[in-house]
């Protein structure tokens, strides 16, 4: 459903992605793991065209995209079929929780307001925030903001949602509420590509793992195999380190 081939990205002379391949099937929950600076965020941002990659191709929903010469129209088409959840939430600060969720429906998809609001309320209900519709972002906790961001991403009924470390800006007490919403989404069959430092999520929720380091994929495969029988020495070292420290960063 989503296939990325040879994606390359450099910031000046710093090569951040050195030809990454990635495959996501419908219903997959793919966890992207890797040490800090390995290019995980950059990978997600390039896939959604927030960053312009220097090379590589992608097929998604039957369309082929060339990263270095995608048109604005193609970018917009791709983004309309995907959702993106940022590490720092990036809720629209001048909009209430409900307006955050309906904005993409009303403005980008020209949906009538009542219909959009119905979908918006349902999305907020799904993340457990029906009672916070009229709240502005600054009136919500970090965990609530991130759940609104998830509601915003699911409201447009995307084929896939990208998550960039959705819990790493949160206090440990608030991490749980966001993770449980994500687990629920996974159970409902949502396709998700999740950059995360949460090993529990990678182990128990995701069915595929991609381990990146230094701009390349070191190992990718089903999460059971990844955790129980890693093939690469580098992966084994990584897993040993996690076992010792619980989480990593």
């Amino acid at each position, binding site marked *: 459903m989503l296939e990325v081939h040879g994606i390359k990205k450099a910031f000046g002379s710093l090569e951040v992605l050195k030809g990454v391949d990635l495959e996501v099937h419908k219903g997959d929950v793919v966890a992207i793991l890797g040490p800090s600076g390995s290019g995980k965020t950059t990978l997600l941002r390039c896939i959604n065209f927030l960053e312009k990659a220097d090379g590589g191709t992608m097929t998604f929903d039957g369309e082929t995209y060339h990263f270095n010469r995608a048109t604005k129209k193609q970018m917009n088409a791709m983004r309309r079929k995907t959702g993106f959840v940022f590490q720092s939430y990036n809720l629209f600060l001048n909009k209430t929780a409900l307006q955050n969720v309906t904005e*993409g429906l009303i403005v*980008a998809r020209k949906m009538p307001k009542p219909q959009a609001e119905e979908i918006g309320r349902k999305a907020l209900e799904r993340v457990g925030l029906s009672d916070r519709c009229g709240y502005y972002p600054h009136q919500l906790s970090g965990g609530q903001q991130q759940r609104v961001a998830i509601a915003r991403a699911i409201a447009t009924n995307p084929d896939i949602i990208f998550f960039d470390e959705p819990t790493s800006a949160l206090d440990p007490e608030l991490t749980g509420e966001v993770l449980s919403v994500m687990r629920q989404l996974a159970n409902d069959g949502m396709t998700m590509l999740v950059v995360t430092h949460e090993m529990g999520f990678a182990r128990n929720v995701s069915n595929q793992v991609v381990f990146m380091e230094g701009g390349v994929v070191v190992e990718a495969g089903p999460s059971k195999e990844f955790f129980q029988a890693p093939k690469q020495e580098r992966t084994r070292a990584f897993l040993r380190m996690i076992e010792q420290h619980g989480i990593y960063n």
Partner: protein
Amino acid sequence: MDTRILELLIDSFPKLLIPGLTMTIPLTVVSFCFAMVIAVVVAMVQFAHVRFLQQICRFYIWFVRGTPLLVQLFVVFYGLTDFNIILEPFVAAVIVFSLNEGAYAAEAIRGALESVPAGQMEAGYCVGMTYLQTMRRIVLPQALRTAFPSLMNSLISMLKDTSLASTITVAEMFMATQRIAGRTFEYMPLYLEVAFIYLLFSTIMTKLQRIGEKKLGAYQTKEVG
């Protein structure tokens, strides 16, 4: 107090207030509205680095900010007659005040646009909105919210600056004062009186600014973690 002067003050008060309400205020409000349109467009061109247009905008701001308002008024009203362009005084004043304020406000709005976190635009893209849609619905409203106090300050400055329009024969409040003063030779009472009316107007505007800020305060434009 001398009853003659008191009578003069009472007698002249409506003669000053009426041009104030029918000239000074309209000149201020109309010019400010045009200025806002100019400022938003210029700020967006600068913010988005639209090639060529950006050069024009930079030149415009450089020129307007580097020359006195009074000179600009004379150039447009008297100077253009050399090219057979004869403007109504009010029209000339609106043109000059709009262009003048537009340049200053453009800089304020551009600064505010730059202070909006980049994630706001990216989030707009990610829900399928285009650049212009996100600009209009998300980024620009936040920038205007941030720039609001400084824009309101400029509005109050402009109210006072409209007194310069008297030099190009706009029959506004200050010109009315000069006329009466010239006839009665009572300079001090009359100029103090008009100063008082300007003060009254700007006080009301400051109050409106407070109310506006409260209304806009429903959301915060700073990111909270």
